[in-house]
């Protein structure tokens, strides 16, 4: 009967090894796993690109701006990039306002973040619609390689899969932010006494911005 004393003991150690709340730590580990998913997709894209002789020129493929027509390389994607960076900034400001228990500021900056996310998604919808109208979709690539030779559909397959997966993350980020906004307006965090939930949503939102930095560079710039 001696081993009945083997009841698990709660940890009473002095210093917390990570010094963050459980949920935040788990958010970090989730984002780490998610970065491997995105990494795998982008590395598959890079590998395919290195294993192919030609590749379409992104400055021609993504050379349109809504209302201005073709011949404006990088312009539209620059706009999308700045929208996402600015929405990331407003998210940091929302998190910061949360630390100060400033509900009004949290609400204000969360609304700006949601607007930024929706603006980015709209831009992506416009771009996808435009590319689709040119005949680009999964399995069909109307754009020749930069040397004019026949291209494969690898280009469009990777583009739609990766920007689509990223867009899905942006969409879920917007949904999370809307939930955070509703919870803030219902004073859920005021009653809890802290706005740590906003911080976790913020981590996810910054990760979405971070992934876009890589997607933007890999698809549009190089």
């Amino acid at each position, binding site marked *: 009967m001696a081993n009945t004393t083997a009841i698990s003991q709660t940890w009473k150690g002095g210093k917390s090894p990570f010094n*963050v709340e459980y949920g935040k730590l788990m958010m970090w580990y989730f984002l780490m796993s998610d970065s491997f998913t995105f990494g795998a997709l982008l*590395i598959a894209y890079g590998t395919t690109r290195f294993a192919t002789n030609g590749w379409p020129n992104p400055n021609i493929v993504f050379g349109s701006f809504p209302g201005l027509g073709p011949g404006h390389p990088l312009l539209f994607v620059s706009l999308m990039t700045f929208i996402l*960076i600015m929405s990331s900034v407003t998210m940091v400001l929302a998190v910061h306002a949360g630390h*100060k228990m400033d509900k009004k500021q949290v609400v204000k900056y969360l609304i700006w973040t949601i607007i930024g996310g929706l603006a980015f998604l709209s831009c992506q919808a416009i771009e996808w619609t435009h590319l689709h109208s040119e005949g680009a979709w999964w399995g069909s690539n109307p754009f020749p390689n930069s040397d004019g030779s026949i291209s494969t559909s690898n280009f469009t397959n990777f583009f739609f899969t990766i920007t689509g997966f990223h867009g899905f993350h942006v969409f879920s980020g917007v949904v999370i932010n809307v939930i955070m906004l509703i919870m803030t307006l219902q004073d859920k965090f005021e009653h809890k006494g802290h706005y740590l939930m906003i911080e976790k949503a913020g981590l996810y939102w910054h990760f979405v911005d971070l992934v876009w930095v890589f997607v933007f*560079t890999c698809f549009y710039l190089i």
Partner: protein
Amino acid sequence: MAHSATIALQPGQKDPAVKEIWRITIILSVLTIVELALGFSMIGMPIETLHYFIKGVIIILMLAKAFYIIGYFMHLKHEVRTLIMSIGIPMLLFVWFILAFIMDGHSYNVMKNRYEPYYKEKSTIQMPPPAEEHKEVKPGGLD
């Protein structure tokens, strides 16, 4: 910023955390603008050493942006060392991941070009210009 909650601000005093947020915003914007300027400079450039050099610079700038987003916006730089390491060390796998796969892809292409003449020839066939009258015909979704 996690620690800023403990610091009581004097009225009228500028919040240093907010100042830092804007400083990082400016750094990120400048890095993006430099990236875009380099991107524009590459348009129409022959694919030579300079072209690859600019691509390398863009990748370095991309990593710098990633550092600022993770370090300051995601606040990892101000977390305890254990947390930084438990996130950072697994990320080192990417060094192998990227090098191994990209080098493998490159070697595949080199060998294909060397041993399969048709593969090389096929990649020089020019794509015919799109016929104007078929422009309305949109290829369907996934069919």
